[in-house]
């Protein structure tokens, strides 16, 4: 049952082979047994999960089931879920009980899916290893001494260790794709504006986008069907026709043009990951695809641009944490200023403070043009590179991450080294394009490697088709560490 696809799991529930209560209990027992090791969840609430499962069983009994009714899903702890502690991986929100549901949570609730718990993450989604969480590091299920990636590290570890049927994540600079790659699972960040950000705790609003993390592209398609859709409460939510992301899964790939950006295969890419990606490309050629050499000349600037824009937006977004209306307030202070300063200093961890300071600096008087405006201009050049590239190809492929998972603590002292783990994913967020990672074998130390698939705007159905056909021809996605 743990290795059933979501489609098979849904069928088993509708055929009464198992009830949602039984399935939920199975996962809760696994979490109780294994979470002390992996630390993939920050919060579970057995009673609420089982109550949801009872309601799902009623829906199933009445024949009102939808594709995900009764299926236990892990929610990244960045999504507000009414009555649930929602921490965003921070001491600042360590006691915050969300008073409302995020749009994504509402969608899962309406469909009768089960909220299995809230997954661990880098604090305020700022990190690439899950080591910045106030609630401790997550362990990679393939090797407990290694990181799961981040920021959606708990989600990726929970999916890989079969501690949920599927999970949600968010991706500002690679936070779905990089942990998916490092844990050997599939994840997709859709086009910016496709999934509502309502109730999703903000990091960098012009880049943040939610998406599914699961064991296969087919599962991702089902989840994406549920998560997407217009929501007037998010001013950047796009008004588009609802689409079925699974509609093209079975299309053959003959004639598919795969663009290979030379910058993604240059210095900095470890040889083991390069080999796995090359092998995946050979498989695609066998499936009838052709590869085309392309160039994204400004992509090397994506990391510097991102580390201006994302901290700038974060410094503004995180100014709301003032210890007044909700969140952490320091126990001792002499006056209002000190209350703000002490609450924020004690409530935020080192990486969050670092990014707030970068953002404050680049937005401050005298530096705005040199940093913020210059970064926004290069952001356009990066987006234009992709537009040019998509004239000669249908999808772009390359590595998701320059290496397989690294050891806990390995990049601890040098923030710049950590930032470079997202070198291939960040440009996609800057352009607002959809990006995906799927497992493509094992590299150094037998750790999973990820293939990144980048599509044109709103081309998720094709990307999922491209990923699914590969997963029909290979079995990397069904390998399990447990």
């Amino acid at each position, binding site marked *: 049952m743990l290795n059933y696809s979501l489609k098979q799991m849904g069928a088993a529930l509708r055929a009464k082979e198992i009830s949602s209560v039984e399935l939920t209990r199975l996962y809760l027992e696994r979490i109780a047994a294994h979470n002390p090791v992996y630390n993939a969840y920050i919060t579970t609430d057995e009673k609420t999960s089982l109550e949801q499962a009872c309601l799902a069983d009623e829906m199933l009994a009445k024949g009102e089931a939808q594709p995900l009714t009764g299926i236990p899903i892990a929610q990244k702890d960045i999504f507000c879920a009414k009555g649930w502690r929602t921490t965003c991986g921070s001491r600042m929100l360590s006691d915050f009980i969300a008073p409302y549901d995020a749009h994504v949570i509402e969608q899962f609730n309406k469909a009768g899916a089960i909220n299995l718990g809230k997954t661990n993450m880098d604090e305020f989604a700022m990190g690439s290893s899950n080591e910045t969480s106030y609630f401790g590091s997550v362990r990679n299920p393939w090797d407990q001494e290694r990181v799961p990636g981040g920021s959606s590290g708990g989600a990726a570890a929970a999916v890989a260790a079969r501690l949920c049927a599927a999970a949600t994540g968010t991706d500002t600079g690679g936070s779905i794709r990089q942990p998916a790659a490092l844990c050997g699972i599939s994840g997709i960040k859709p086009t910016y504006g496709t999934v509502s950000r309502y109730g999703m705790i903000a990091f960098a609003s012009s880049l943040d986008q939610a998406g599914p993390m699961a064991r296969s592209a087919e599962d991702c398609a089902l989840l994406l069907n549920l998560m997407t859709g217009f929501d007037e409460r998010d001013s950047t939510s796009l008004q588009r026709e609802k689409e079925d992301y699974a509609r093209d899964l079975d299309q053959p790939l003959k004639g598919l043009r795969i663009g290979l950006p030379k910058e993604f295969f240059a210095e900095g890419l470890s040889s083991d990951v390069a080999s796995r990606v090359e092998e995946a490309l050979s498989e695609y050629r066998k499936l009838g695809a052709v590869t085309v050499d392309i160039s994204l000349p400004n992509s090397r600037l994506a990391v510097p641009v991102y580390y201006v824009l994302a901290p700038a937006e974060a410094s503004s977004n995180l*100014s709301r944490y003032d210890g007044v209306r909700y969140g952490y307030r320091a126990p001792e202070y002499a006056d209002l200023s000190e209350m*703000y300063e002490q609450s924020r200093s004690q409530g935020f961890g080192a990486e969050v403070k670092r990014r707030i300071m970068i953002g404050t600096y680049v937005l401050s008087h005298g530096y705005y043009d040199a940093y913020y405006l210059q970064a926004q201009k290069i952001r356009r050049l990066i987006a234009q590179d992709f537009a040019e590239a998509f004239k000669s190809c249908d999808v772009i492929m390359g590595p998701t991450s320059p290496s397989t998972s690294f050891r806990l603590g390995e990049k601890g002292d040098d923030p*710049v080294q950590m930032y470079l783990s997202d070198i291939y994913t960040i440009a996609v967020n800057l352009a607002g394009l959809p990006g995906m990672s799927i497992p493509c074998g094992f590299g150094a130390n037998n750790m999973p490697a990820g293939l990144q698939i980048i599509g044109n705007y709103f081309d998720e159905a094709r990307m999922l088709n491209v990923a699914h056909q590969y997963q029909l021809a290979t079995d990397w996605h069904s390998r399990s560490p447990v």
Partner: protein
Amino acid sequence: MSLSTDDVQKVARLARLAMNDDEIEAARSQLSGIFQLIEEMQAVDTSGIEPMSHAQDLTQRLREDRVTEPDQRELFQSIAPQVSSGLYLVPQVIE
């Protein structure tokens, strides 16, 4: 680029972050490293390029001016650090 202790102290103050001397020094060294990375941007000629502030070229949607949210003051204040008679309490600011 290298930041001075004064730069870091000023930024910490603007960001409302209390930091001791050791923390300021650690931040100074790490931020200098990060700004070295960021400086790579300066070599690019961007004259005539329109800044891109957002992933989609959107115009803000307008909506009818009507009440859409119910009153949830009690619920929202139940998670506040300190409230009294429906008001958020902060240290006195006006003598």
